[in-house]
């Protein structure tokens, strides 16, 4: 039987999930994910026409709080775990190419 998910699809999904995978991982995941998906497809034995999808097992509704000013974390605490910072900012590599002004 054809694999549920081939290596090309694994690469595509990895890109969507922002995960860089090695060639060995791509190969391994193609096999393992295919086996898992094949198992998961046993759900297709069930007729679910007319069944509501259940995202949440309790009846939940949106919760609003009163619109009052409350204390927030503050700059220092927020930045305390930053891999790199510049003053009061999180520092990241340059996002725009040279000369590629937005």
């Amino acid at each position, binding site marked *: 039987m054809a694999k549920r998910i081939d290596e090309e699809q694994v690469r595509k999904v990895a890109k969507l999930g922002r995960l860089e995978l090695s060639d060995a991982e791509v190969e391994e995941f193609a096999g393992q994910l295919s086996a*898992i998906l094949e198992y998961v497809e046993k759900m297709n*034995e069930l007729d679910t026409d007319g069944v509501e999808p259940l995202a949440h097992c*309790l009846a939940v509704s949106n919760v609003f709080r009163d619109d009052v000013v409350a204390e927030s974390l503050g700059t220092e605490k927020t930045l305390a*775990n930053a891999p790199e910072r510049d003053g009061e900012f999180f520092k990241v590599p340059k996002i725009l190419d040279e000369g590629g002004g937005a």
Partner: protein
Amino acid sequence: MEELSARQLRDRIAAHEISSVEATEAVFERIDRYEPVVGAYINTFEERALAKAAEVDKRIAAGEQVGELAGVPVAVKDNMCTTFGATTCASKILENFHSPYNAAVVEKLLGADAVIVGKTNLDEFAMGSSTENSGLKQTVNPWDTSRVPGGSSGGSTAAVAAGMCYAALGSDTGGSIRQPASLCGVVGLKPTYGRVSRYGLVAYGSSLDQIGPVTRTVADAALLMNVIAGHDERDSTSVDEREAPVCDYLEKLDEPVSGLKIGVVPALNAGADEQVQKAVADALEVYKGLGAEVVEIEIPHFDYAIAAYYMVATAEASSNLARYDGVHYGHRTKEASDYVEVYSKSRAEAFGKEVKRRIMLGTYALSSGYYDAYYLKALKVRNLIRGDFTKAFEKCNCVMMPISPTTAFKIGEKVDDPLTMYLSDIYTIAANLAGVPGISIPCGFDGDNLPIGLQIIAPVFDEQKLLRIAHMFEKETDWHIKRPTISG
């Protein structure tokens, strides 16, 4: 002293018979002795714990009012945020993450004057059934150090089993409290979804995750529930107490449930190993001896729970774990040449295999073209499973079945075969999908002296009755008193 339950210790401390400092020192002596073998903790806080113990002793000596867990050494799974120590989720991506706030349950433990001795190991981001997926260390089963403790709360259950704390907190998304409790011979309760605040619990599968106690006795589980249950406005899925009041879970614990009807699905129980089947059958006999009636019920969609779970949980995980981007906190790659590589390389370098696998699976299930076939289908199957339980509870007060099809398996045995590992969650997952509470209590040992757990599942918000039912069994048996001889 080390044989006491958390409640007994609390009472002795309150009665000035033992000091919290003595109890805490004894726990750290055991940690010194056994932790090098068991590996239950990612981090311990000896100095801090002893200071808290001394403070509690002083307040008790002065006749001041103290909390419900005053002076009792406890542990917390390392996916719950603490302002002291790191909060790692056993992941390299959070290895040096220091939370700016405490999880709601940590606040509650501290408010109850518990002494937090350490943070326990887990499968990375609570994804796994053996604690082998920890990115930081290996935990072994105190009953046999060549075997896994179960997972993902394997550090918490191993620590309680080894006497390296009196009680602990775990989290359960697909069985992660109950299965390791079973494999380590301790009590583990997954409350109803929404009963305990998830504020400060690092998210894995948000519609399934629930925090609960890992303890030596059912009474201790009730005691911990008294401390941690309740509404929290910071968790919008935590339940409104006007709709479902929190009760005193200790109050009626000693009252047996009269006219108890226990639902069983014979074909389901027959799926477990012979020795597990026998222990569960023997447990049912104990209940019959107490006047309970065993009725056959059906849970027609039970067999589809694993399939539905691994779509729902991984879809939620892939979304929840998108936050680990190497920008605001956590590991950042040194190799990035552009911003996309900051994300993709940071995640590649620091996530373990199982986490990557689940992100891939969930991303796939949510991706265009596959959403209806996998994710939406799984949500519909989830509804069918919840309906099964609602119907089953019309005929019985609780359902009993095994927790795990086998006792603790060997380290390394299933690690290269994810699907086989997933299938070991067969008995625990349905309760998460349906949101109902479930408990694991010790009910025997196999021929290799490995513990076996009995699972009891109750209707939503029926924790009080669930604990009473579990307590009935515990009073009649002494499985929960047995302790491992740790060697290795």
